[in-house]
């Protein structure tokens, strides 16, 4: 039982520490980064619907003071935005391989 209480306390302290690292500013910055990458993909016709949705959801969570949820959503938005930019860069190189050879 003592061991359980000790482990639980440690977990609680860890979670508290993680939550303390999150700030409105850090999450906002993450959202801005996702927006910027999304815009980069969008200008070359590679914007993804899901990124925009995640950004909107992250903003809503942040406005609602749900910092952990906003953090999670903005990280996912950042991930999909990055994937869309990667797609646009890769496709510039490989699209020709799909057209039938003359």
């Amino acid at each position, binding site marked *: 039982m003592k061991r359980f209480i000790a482990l639980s306390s440690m977990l609680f302290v860890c979670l508290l520490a993680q939550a303390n690292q999150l700030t409105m500013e850090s999450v906002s910055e993450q959202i801005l980064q996702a927006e910027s990458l999304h815009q980069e993909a969008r200008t070359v016709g590679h914007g993804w619907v899901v990124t925009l949705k995640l950004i909107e959801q992250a903003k809503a969570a942040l406005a609602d003071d749900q910092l952990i949820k906003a953090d999670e959503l903005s990280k996912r938005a950042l991930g999909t935005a990055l994937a869309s930019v990667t797609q646009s860069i890769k*496709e510039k190189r490989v699209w020709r391989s799909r*057209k039938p050879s*003359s």
Partner: protein
Amino acid sequence: MTRGTVCLVALLAGAGSASADPESDRQALARYFEQRFPDVEVAAHIDGAYALNAQTREQWLAMEDFPPYEFSVDDGEVLFGASFKDGSGYQDCFGDGNVKAHFPYFDLKEQSVVTLELAINDCRVASGEEPLAYDGEDIALLSAYMAFTSRDSVIDIEVPPEGLAAYEEGKQYYYSRRGQLNFSCSHCHMQMSGMKLRAETLSATIGHVTHWPVYRLKWQEIGPLHRRFKECNEQVGAEGLEYQSETYRNLEYFLTYMSQGLPLNGPASRK
């Protein structure tokens, strides 16, 4: 400049021109579908998926007995015949409306692709009228009527040297993966053409532009080709673009050249 550099430049120039040869592209695509569907004539692809599935073709032909776009053609005819405030009308720009075979074209002055919808609005603006909304009903009705009057005309467009860049952009768009599902247009309409996506048979690239605008049962109304482009984009998780955006016009330009020589059969009905 060394001889080696000259050779390299010549090679690169050669590679560039080889990639921008619409007629070679069209012939290669036609060959691709001839090999993929040896029992289907290339011209038959103007009926889309109904050229590839006998059962759905039968249902579609039955529906064509009372085509759902019929009223749209009638309403479009009324709009087409109406006069502008200055006394002129669409006839002054398009004659009897049988002009679709030559759209889209590359406008040398504007240095961009002009689709039929764009030309309709240019005609209006030149007469002092407000342009129509590209996602509105009137422009779909007008183009439905013009598609009807253009039926059986053979697609005959040109890609002048100045238009090659626009054509190439359209081609690149068609063959590029996009969206979260990481699909290009060609994945569905070349590699998987004739196969099923849920309950629907996927149509071939060739013939994609011959029958627009289309009355889709899903939409419960007649709509333009760019609406379908946008919908296709969104189906693979990509953000759709504005109707008549430069990218969609270039895509239409490429796809129309791929159907060069095929008869127009619009408007049409689709599921």
